[in-house]
């Protein structure tokens, strides 16, 4: 019984190490690319939101009818847009991309 538990423990330890190494390699390689793509996707989403909801700002681009139909799809990302766009940006933010 104890032997079995030990073997299970070792297997668990190996799994944890394998997971950690996989995550480490992901962090060193594709993580930044994934973040870049996610950033791009969100920015395009925000632009779409701004464009389709322009009626609410008094800019008659699409009719309010279409804007309101799209609103439920855009709502989930409005909060992140508000946070990201309203935050004070500093040029030193760019240092992150230099790594």
């Amino acid at each position, binding site marked *: 019984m104890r032997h079995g538990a030990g073997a299970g423990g070792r297997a668990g330890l190996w799994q944890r190490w394998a997971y950690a190494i996989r995550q480490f390699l992901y962090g060193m390689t594709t993580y930044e690319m994934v973040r870049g793509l996610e950033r791009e996707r969100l920015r395009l989403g925000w632009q779409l939101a701004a464009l389709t909801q322009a009626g609410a700002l008094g800019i008659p681009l699409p009719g309010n009818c279409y804007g309101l139909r799209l609103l439920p799809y855009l709502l989930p990302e409005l909060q*992140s847009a508000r*946070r*990201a766009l309203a935050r004070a940006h500093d040029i030193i933010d760019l240092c992150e991309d*230099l790594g």
Partner: protein
Amino acid sequence: MNALLVLLLACAAIVLGYGWYAKRIDRTVIQPDDSKATPAKLYMDGVDFTPADRNVLFGYQFKSIAALGPITGPIVAVQYGWLPALIWILLGTFFIGWVQDYASIMLGVREEGQTFGALSYRLISPRARTLLLVFIYFYLWLIMGAFGYQIGFGLLTKATVPLGVLAAIGLGLLAGQMTYRWKQDIILTTIVTVVLAFVGIYLGTLPAVQSFFNIILGYGAAGTGKPPILFLTIDQAKFVGSLAVVIICYFGGVLPIWRWAQPINYVCFWIVLLGVIGGVLGLIIWHPGMADFPAFTTFNVSGLGPLWPILFVTIACGAISGWHSLVSSSGTARQLEKESDALFVGGGAMFLEMFFATIAFLTATVGMEGYKKYLDVLKVSPASVFSAGLAKFMNQWGLPSALGTAYGSVFLVLMGLTIMYLVVRFMRVASAEALGDRFPALRNEHVGTVIALLFTLALIWLVPFLQIWVLFGAANQLMASLALLLISLWLLSKGKQYAWAFWPFVFMFLTTMAALVWNVYQAFFIKLPAAKGEAAVAQVIIGVVAIVLFIAALILAIDGLRALQKARAGKAAARA
């Protein structure tokens, strides 16, 4: 001393430094609280603020801080002998390096993810942010010069290297196309591009290819000739090499990041990782001693300067680097899921970088098999020492020396370039931001990039490498000391024990300011009177940059110490 003993010492420094000292500071002073929401959770926007797994962040942090710095620094510094260099790599990381990286992350986490610019504005003075930006711009320019020189004047002037570099860049572009446009699986993309990149490195060592590049570089088809001098002291090989560097950086500076920088970095990462693994494996199999490499040579190395302060700035990122604080506070701190992850990510990555610097140290001290050969290869460039040493290590498990040297050289070129074109991007944006209103042309990305690259060429073509490197090291360490001052201020403002950050600040500040004074003295009083033409211009450039950095750092420190005094007086008044 045996190479394995050096590796064991590095491991002991990690166990003691990370496992005891760092954990003690973390537990007793910073006291991370996982119930507190980190900025990544509090302000999650899916862009900059996003919680990430600690292992992912560890990889991300290490990738962000490891470049040519921890490789070149120790290789140049062992001119004082292996003992002082090794002591500083181990003790510098133990007492200062991890402190700065870890505390910068915690500062960012506890101050709602604010960058060092915003924090210096708030904690030091309003002008501190502007001075910090000036400082960063000059620092980045020195990075471009230091890396560009080694690549353009050293590595790319060898006929075995250019094809491997071109192949890696071309295959990086293919990786981008396969991933983003053709939507191919990342594993397939990796296998195809990395394997082909290795084929490219191998093809570069074939006689016909070497002969082709020998003609381009001016050595003649047999590769035995001397390249003709084209202008100043620049021969054809150096001209072609440096021009290739700026052209590659130009594309990196103006093309979208997903098209150029990211996929090329991705392919290069695998080439570099496999090189490091291959090198360490060979080193363990071989485990040589240091032969006649002296433990200590002299207190004053010709071309570098006195052991204090120059050794401490020369090793640069191998022991402590100001760059890490910028990356830690503006990037990593915003992605930390729990406060207790900060030590693993910041401290752990710094200790791993120390291990990396130790490997570079060993390429010079044991890989060259003797002090004389080390000095001979160092005359070409420190990067050549690394590539030759790495080739020697990999030769132990059967990789032919010629292929190993070409591989080591391509490895270093790619490592340097991946940083350089991103630095160009930053310089372009920084100049547009600072001067764009006065000179609208700077807002054009091509103009901004070309100007940054012309500055770089001026540095590479005119200034001797060791002077660029020492000045770069001084700027780098000075930024680290300013980060430590900011951290001390923050700790004091929170009523926490701050001596563990303040005394490292005092040591680093005095050391780096002394290094700058030494640079100014050497440039204006020793070298300038004896120099003529472009050599005189070089000394003026070095002297002026050193003065600008000195003044900016002095004002920042005075403002910082005033703020520190004010905070202490405030605390005393509150107690009374």
